């Protein structure tokens, strides 16, 4: 009797569970239109233009991606509009890359980014980017030449550069973090059309959620050095040729006039940057950068056989880097952006209540920097 009762109870439970919560909405992969990239443009006051790259599966179709552009006021309404133009249900779960036009970024991205945050199907590892011109033209590039869909292509483009340490990772997660952080500002890469492809032309500096400046791609190295650690990277430095006269080898020829400057390329860099608040009253920061590198290429034959010469080159490089970093820090200060997190360093060293973003910006105006670079050339390559 007891046993029978138990079975009855189990059956009733199973029946309830199956009937009351059975039909979960199915999302079968082949019936979905997967949005892999999204672009947002400012159409006019009160209206944004949204473009999506949709990847869909069809055994018969050749071109698997479709680009849809519509205009609306909010990003979710855009989705509704876009859904009207496609035979498969639009979903955002495979979104890899979002492009905002510079125009839009100048007016603030927080609401559009917030829409991404709230959608649980969108991962935190989505890359956010800024288009140099408008997002539509980037999304609309001729995709027939790409082997993969545009979203994945852009994702790989950025990921590859993040992995080779030319960029700092521009994921949604990091953008959110830096946006909320009182002592740090977000940065995003800028995409630019180049011929038929896309290139990363630099990084956009944000003050809050608005873009206030740009850093060209050749300056990215120093930003990255300060931003986080280097494990392997390459950088090229230019010097005045005359400074190096004593160590340039004259291989019979008197003067080679291809370059009037001397360029040295160092790679395999391991770097470590330390920002220290030295004087709280004067707001003096000391930035210490330690680098281990390998000298692999120079535009002139240099005599690298003696330690003295190596030390000489190290010194030159140190000096050059110090001035570049100093310039960069001043540039950031002028633009009132803090992508490196100097504010965090300050707050970590002051035992007061954490500052608000506004308070820190007031202080930031008067910050002073002292830069020290200690570069060691570990190897100069293999020569038989």
């Amino acid at each position, binding site marked *: 009797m007891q046993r029978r009762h138990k079975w009855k109870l189990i059956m009733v439970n199973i029946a309830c569970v199956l009937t009351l919560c059975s039909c979960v909405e199915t999302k079968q992969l*082949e019936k979905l239109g*997967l949005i892999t990239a999204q672009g947002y443009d400012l159409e006019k006051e009160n209206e944004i233009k949204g473009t999506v790259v949709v990847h869909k599966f069809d055994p018969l179709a050749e071109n698997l991606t479709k680009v849809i552009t519509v205009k609306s006021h909010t990003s979710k309404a855009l989705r509704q509009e876009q859904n009207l133009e496609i035979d498969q249900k639009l979903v955002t779960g495979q979104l890899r890359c979002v492009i905002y036009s510079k125009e839009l970024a100048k007016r603030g991205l927080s609401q559009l980014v917030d829409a991404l945050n709230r959608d649980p199907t969108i991962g935190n590892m989505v890359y956010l980017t800024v288009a140099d011109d408008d997002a539509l033209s980037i999304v609309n590039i001729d995709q027939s030449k790409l082997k*993969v869909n545009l979203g994945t292509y852009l994702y790989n483009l950025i990921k590859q550069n993040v992995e080779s340490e030319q960029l700092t990772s521009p994921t949604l997660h990091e953008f959110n973090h830096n946006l909320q952080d009182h002592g740090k500002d977000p940065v995003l890469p800028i995409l630019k059309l180049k011929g038929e492809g896309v290139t990363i032309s630099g990084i956009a500096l944000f003050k809050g959620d608005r873009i206030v400046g740009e850093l060209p791609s050749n300056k990215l190295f120093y930003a990255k050095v300060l931003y986080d650690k280097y494990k392997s990277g390459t950088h090229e430095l230019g010097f005045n040729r005359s400074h190096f006269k004593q160590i340039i080898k004259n291989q019979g020829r008197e003067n080679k006039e291809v370059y009037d400057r001397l360029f040295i390329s160092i790679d395999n860099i391991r770097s470590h940057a330390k920002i220290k608040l030295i004087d709280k009253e004067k707001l003096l920061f000391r930035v210490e950068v330690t680098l281990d590198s390998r000298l692999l290429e120079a535009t002139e034959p240099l005599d690298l056989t003696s330690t003295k010469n190596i030390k000489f080159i190290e010194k030159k490089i140190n000096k050059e880097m110090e001035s570049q970093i100093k310039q960069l820090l001043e540039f950031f200060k002028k633009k009132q952006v803090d992508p490196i997190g100097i504010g965090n360093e300050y707050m970590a060293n002051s035992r007061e209540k954490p500052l608000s973003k506004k308070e820190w910006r007031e202080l930031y105006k008067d910050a002073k920097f002292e830069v020290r670079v200690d570069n060691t050339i570990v190897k100069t390559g293999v020569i038989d």
Partner: protein
Amino acid sequence: MFKWMSGKKTPEGEKAHSLQIDELKEQLKKELVACSDLMFRTLKRNDKKIVICFVSSLIDKTGVDDYILKPIQENTQSGWSVEELAQILPITDLTGANQLNEIVMALIDGKTYIYSEGEPFGFLANLSNTVERSLSHAETESLVFGPKIAFTESLLGNVNIIRNNIKDPNLCMEDLAIGTRSKTSAKLVYIKGIADEANINTFRQRVSQLEIDHVQGTTVLGQLIEGNSWSVFPQLMTTELPDRITLALMSGRVAVLMDRSPDALYGPTPFFTFFESTEDVYMRWNMGFFLRILRLVATFLSVLLTPAYVAVLTYHYEVIPSPLLVSLGQSRSNVPFPPVFEAFLLEFVIELLREAGARLPTKVGQTMGIVGGIVIGQAAVEAGFTSNILIIIIALSALGSFTTPSYLMGTAIRIIRFPIILMAGFWGGIGIMVAFCFFIIHLLKLDTLGRPYLAPIYPLNLKDLGYSIFRFPSQFLSYRPVTNQPEDKERYSAKKAKEKKDVDE
């Protein structure tokens, strides 16, 4: 046997047979209903009659000729009294009897009854001959390493093998009779001083209190005496490998051998025992270690891979990595069914293949495997019946389930996959979790001979992990598995093993 002489009153149903040979014949014919092979051989000398009764199909005829007829006929000077007969018959297994019941049972057992007319009792001589196959290779549990010998259907032969493996005077063999009608003889085997008394008692009690007309073999016996017969998971293990039984006995387990059954049943066998092969022990420990982990991983994948495919393709498209996305989506877009149905279909086909392969003779089975492989591998995908990724997954999970050394457990694993796939189709990842938790809870509730089924994971016993999930080298295994609660806990003295025996000392 000499009950009638002790003056005790014979109990109901037990009576001495008639002292007249003709009447005795009638009595026996009446008792052994329609027994056409019951035969009598009567000898006469000086008005004295002697009768030899046997069931002709059960005895060794030349034996009867040589050891019964010949001595009786040749010894002309000696009489035919009981004492004289006992002197002249050259037979080891000779007992006196006069109870009709006893004689009937003995005749069915293959004994020969010799009765000299007028004497108070006759002799039962054991000259039985049972049909047996010779020892052969293990078929269901095939091995690369280790002894290949397998049990046969003969209880005596099996006991012989075990006794030869373990020459320990403490090796106990208790006689048991199973089946109220069939009365199959069986033996409860354990090593006294190692096996836990409680285990022995549980086993003995469960087997001896079994009231059923006939038990078909040890596998059936296992089903009859295990704790939860509703479960798909076998709770007691059968094996045809004598060395497996030897290992089990030495680690404090208890076994039952049954006549006419080529498998031995043993316990307690927790869940992970079913994933152990004797080969793990014979191999070098690191190989054994690797193989055990491999088997567990394979089982895990076998259970969860197909449900994961179903769940991901029906509900969680977000988690598909982008390199896989295109190939998955492309192959799926050809398929007209939802993923659950697709998975069920293919699992069904694989099960069909397996079952058909097991039923067919080996020669045909191979051909069928090839045909099945081509049909499923190529044609089904090209016809847009299934996606090729699912084929890989299904094949992987089928392979995974075959790595389990125990055929019963392998089947159980294949079966529990189906409800999990169904739940994955209903509720996606949550469904998998619900179903999986259900099975985990079920496993936790099971017991094997009253001992926890998931030992040594739950209750956790770190010492025994080296025996069940992992395989440690023997210098770390100086003790017997704790979960078996052996009485003699040590295999060797760990302290003594650490002493160095240098020549200099």
